[in-house]
């Protein structure tokens, strides 16, 4: 968030990629893309490309970490070294540790962890190409992967960001807007209860601008939710159409 005023991000009421202020980028989702993982999902969100795998519930080691009242949900968000223009040094940095933490917390609110005491559910978010909004895209795909794994959940988690560019509040920032905009507000919701499970913000927003950014992000999340449901429905239709259990595992 440099808030650089010299960079033009809005021209003739349109954004750099021709989107309107309330328009989310193109999103494509798919589930069951990996063989070994219990559940998996792939998402293309604008130029973002992310693959998510879920393992578990499985035994948690070391044992002292086990919780006899519920399962632990762990999340690892990882940027591939080639996912950004300037190579990212492999391994966790402070940013990815923080994203992993808030993503795990968001998913923990919907997964029925109390059904699997002493175990761990591992969610691995691998970002193959990053173009702003990776935590939202990753989280969206992660909840699909959990559903794909057949892990009992109260609802999906749908995520989308809002932000401010050249003084205008818009939904779903792309890379240039993230770099030169004045604010980024990633959000994730549990759509059926209309509750917020991830909310971060950095930059500059007045109290009124926060209200409109919140509304735009929420609206974006609801659009993402519809796509998620359609993706899961299509995968089920395919599963049943191909003769059910013989092909699925």
């Amino acid at each position: 968030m440099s808030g650089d005023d010299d960079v033009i991000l809005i021209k003739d009421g349109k954004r750099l990629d021709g989107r309107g202020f309330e328009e989310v980028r193109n999103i494509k989702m798919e589930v069951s893309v990996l063989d070994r993982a219990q559940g998996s999902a792939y998402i293309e969100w604008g130029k973002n490309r992310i693959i998510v795998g879920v393992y578990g519930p499985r035994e948690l080691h070391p044992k002292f970490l086990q919780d006899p009242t519920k399962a632990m949900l762990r999340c690892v968000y990882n940027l591939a070294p080639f996912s950004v223009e300037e190579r990212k040094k492999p391994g966790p940095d402070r940013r990815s540790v923080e994203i992993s933490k808030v993503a795990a917390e968001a998913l923990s609110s919907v997964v029925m962890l109390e059904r699997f005491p002493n175990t761990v559910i591992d969610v691995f978010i691998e970002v193959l190409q990053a173009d702003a909004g990776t935590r939202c895209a990753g989280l969206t795909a992660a909840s699909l992967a959990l559903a794909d794994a057949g892990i009992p959940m109260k609802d999906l988690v749908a995520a989308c960001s809002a932000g401010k560019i050249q003084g205008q509040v818009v939904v779903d920032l792309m890379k240039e807007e993230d770099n030169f905009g004045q604010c980024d507000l990633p959000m994730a919701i549990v759509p059926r209860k209309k509750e917020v499970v991830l909310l971060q913000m950095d930059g500059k927003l007045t109290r009124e601008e926060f209200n409109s950014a919140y509304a735009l992000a929420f609206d974006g999340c609801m659009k993402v939710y519809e796509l998620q449901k359609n993706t899961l429905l299509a995968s089920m239709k395919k599963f049943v159409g191909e003769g059910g259990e013989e092909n699925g595992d």
Partner: protein
Amino acid sequence: MEIEGYLKKDYITNLVGEGKRADGRRFDEYRSIVLENNYSGEKACGSCLVHLGKTKVIAGVSLDIGEPYSDKPNDGVMSTSAELRPIASPRFESGPPNDESIEVARVVDRGIRESGAIDTKKLFVEDDLVWIAFIDLHILDHCGNLIDAAGIAAISALLNTRMPKYEDGKIIYGEYSGKMPIKCVPIPCTTVKIGNSLLMDPDTDEEYAMDARLTVATTDIVNAMQKGGNGAFKEEEIMSAVDMAFEKGGQIRKIVTGD
């Protein structure tokens, strides 16, 4: 798991349901805030020990000269780290920063960075050389609400930070050329949700019992937010947490600036 917090959880939740807190505070009431400026002595360029109730956090500011970021060649650099020292809680262990300490550091960092509290333009020294401000947050006693305590400590330490002299390519520590240029005072305020109630400035038992927390760092606008915990917030809860953060932030700012 923490057995003590687990056993107290029902008690805390029921108490909050009755509109009460274990220590008798109102839901929007902070524990007492006491600042001890320049606590660590004269070696650090700036420091402050904050007592937030029984929580104790010391922030130290060190200054060095180094290269600017390539995309901002004329701006000074800031960096924030937090250490949850094992002295502060039986739960903390020695070793590299974990997700909890990284979160504290990054949320405090965002509030200061995004509000533009440090006038980084004035930290320019010469071509390819700028001042680098390191803010180190040392958690000494964890009795809840580390983010707010650390955020208050960080900005307080910055406000009493002196710039060392820089002559002939060398930093002369112990001699000063003036004060650190600070433009505004961002204050993080944390609200937790327990059942259907919103409480500010949670202690450790309340943090264990909470469904979720929301930290909002404000100046005259919102500069940073962070939701934590496994639970969820309703829209109206978020809006009241933001409003409460503006109100309490203003009161705490007065304590920090001494107005």
